[in-house]
């Protein structure tokens, strides 16, 4: 019985997953703050508390995400690209393509039948088309981002959101609201834009079933439906989709000789 932990320090949230015997036994999620090292520590502590386990029982801690070098108490670091591949493969073994939309970036990752990365593509640094974009636009509509997923279902006349820049899109949304447009239709327009930008990344690595959608934005049902419609495919989304990177990181730890030097 080996207990391993993966800590994913993203741009927006810190996540931790604990795995033992092929099962996820604990997890945690919290926004990242100012001190990433502390956030990482806390993520692990909270996951341990949820699993009612002790720090001493953890054999390997692997860090991932943009802040992976802040997981200073861990033994390994792996890029989030490798971790999303591995995590998605663990949750959906048939996965061939992972789309990860997080707080600040979007990645398309092609994986082989063993969950190894074959190819990947990601966008340049700009908030357009990321979770942050949705956060800001949801705010302009007067909602929290966690509410807008269900809200958009059943839109009939999606508006055309022409701006990609988050700031411009925010005013565009505001002006649609002022013109009395239905939030459903505005959201559908926003999703359409994000999905087509994501598709362009997915095309880069090649779209093949099965597609697994990960990262915080995959919790948005409207986004999932829009993606499915454009791909004409069913897309895997796990209830743990925001933890996929952390799960993958934990699994990497299992492949290492236990007690590897720090």
């Amino acid at each position: 019985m080996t207990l391993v932990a993966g800590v994913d320090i993203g741009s927006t949230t810190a996540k931790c997953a604990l795995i033992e015997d092929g099962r996820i036994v604990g997890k945690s999620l919290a926004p990242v703050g100012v001190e990433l090292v502390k956030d990482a520590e806390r993520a692990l502590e909270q996951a341990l508390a949820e699993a009612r386990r002790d720090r001493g029982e953890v054999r390997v801690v692997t860090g991932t995400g943009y802040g992976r070098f802040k997981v200073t108490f861990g033994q390994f670091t792996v890029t989030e690209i490798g971790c999303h591949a591995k995590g998605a493969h663990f949750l959906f073994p048939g996965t061939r393509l992972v789309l990860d939309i997080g707080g600040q970036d979007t990645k398309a990752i092609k994986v082989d039948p063993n969950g190894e990365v074959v190819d990947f593509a990601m966008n340049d640094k700009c908030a357009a088309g990321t979770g942050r974009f949705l956060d800001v636009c949801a705010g302009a509509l007067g909602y929290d981002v966690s509410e807008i997923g269900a809200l958009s279902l059943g839109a009939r006349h999606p508006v055309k959101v022409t701006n990609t820049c988050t700031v411009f899109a925010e005013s565009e949304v505001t002006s649609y609201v002022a013109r009395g447009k239905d939030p459903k239709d505005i959201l559908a327009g926003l999703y359409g834009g994000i999905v087509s930008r994501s598709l362009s990344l997915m095309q880069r690595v090649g779209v093949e079933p099965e597609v697994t959608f990960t990262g915080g934005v995959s919790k948005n049902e409207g986004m999932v439906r829009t993606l499915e419609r454009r791909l004409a495919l069913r897309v895997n989304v796990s209830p743990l989709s925001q933890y996929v990177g952390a799960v993958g990181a934990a699994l990497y730890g299992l492949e290492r000789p236990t007690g590897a030097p720090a």
Partner: protein
Amino acid sequence: MGDTGTEPRFLTTARDRQREMVEEYYAGLAGAGGPKKPVAYMLVGGNLTEIVRSFGYEVVFPEIVALNCAIKHVSLPNILHAESQGYGLDVCGYVKNDLGLQELGGETPFGRIPPPDLLVCSFSGCYVYVKWWEALAEKYGCPLFMLDVPYLRDATPQPEDIQYIVTQLHELIALLEKATGRAFDPAELRATLARSRRAEEGWVDYLASGRRRPSPIEAYFEAVFYMFPINVLRGTEVAADFYATVNAEVDERVRSGMYPVPDEKFRLVVEGVPPYPSYRTFWDFFRKWGAVSVAATYPKVGGLFDRGFLHDPARPFESIAEYSLGAYVNQSWPLRRTLIEEYVRDFGADAVLIHGIKSCRSFTAGQGDLRDRLIHDLGIPTLYIESDHEDPRYFAPAQIKNRMDAFFESLDRRKGTTPLPMVSG
């Protein structure tokens, strides 16, 4: 960042010698210009150094000046100046560096670049060449000779292509005779071409040693330095001798086991122009993972010598024509694709790394398709990253490093060799 902490390894003597040559070259440009010591500007791709030098011209290559500025971190002020003149963000960084530098008086840390008395444009592989030389001609009002080099679409040049270039070469010679009052000396050209040939053969031998395992050469980062003589000083005795020095030292590396990347783990073919403003940082990202480039396309921008496009004193004009046709970016995409595939095979590479240049469409437009071909049709792991060859503002180190780490990680796992790197700051 996870640096190996070691200095990149160069061939000691060759690198010193190369430095001297560069210094001597720029020192030689001091005071050049005017009828006594006229200056010709030329482009690297398919250049006509041998002919133009034989008429007593000093030759300036603004592309090389530009890359030297970038490596020395002085390109940005030139670029900004050009932008203030109206050159947009998307214009080739070399062009902006040069035109900015010209407006600012030509001062560089390696000497003052004299203005041109003659502009020779070898339109070989890049349309921007034409635009760039037009701008220089407009500024300086000096004669511009346009050598039109047909795009190479068949592996072997067609007779009409060669005929067209040869006709133009004779016209260039007539122009040079008129401009300098000197008579053309065919025997002298043949002798010069013989020296060129000697340098070219030495260079080809150097490049071929990347086939060995481990590779005794770094065919991208290091080779870039040894490109200088083959492109700038070709036809001179010093250039011809230089490659003997280089190759002797490569042999020494093999004997003593002092390889450029001490523990060669990944063998790469690299396609694309280097990110000169962040050259060292970029190289670090490779070395950290034990990656060595065994072959690269960029060192072939001057000419594809290793594919037989060599100067030949017995067929002076025809061989110059063939050489110009063969410059790497003058090759059509199907030819470029084939070449890269052959490099991967012949040099036993594990993967391909493509470096796209945001402001260079000639090299870059289509690299995504190449990537698609390598990965999806041939199953060769390939990474595509993008920055710029001149403009430091386009190099995002954290993002590039993240992508490279992810790529090498996955290569590593597929090779199933060593553990992933430890946590480092």
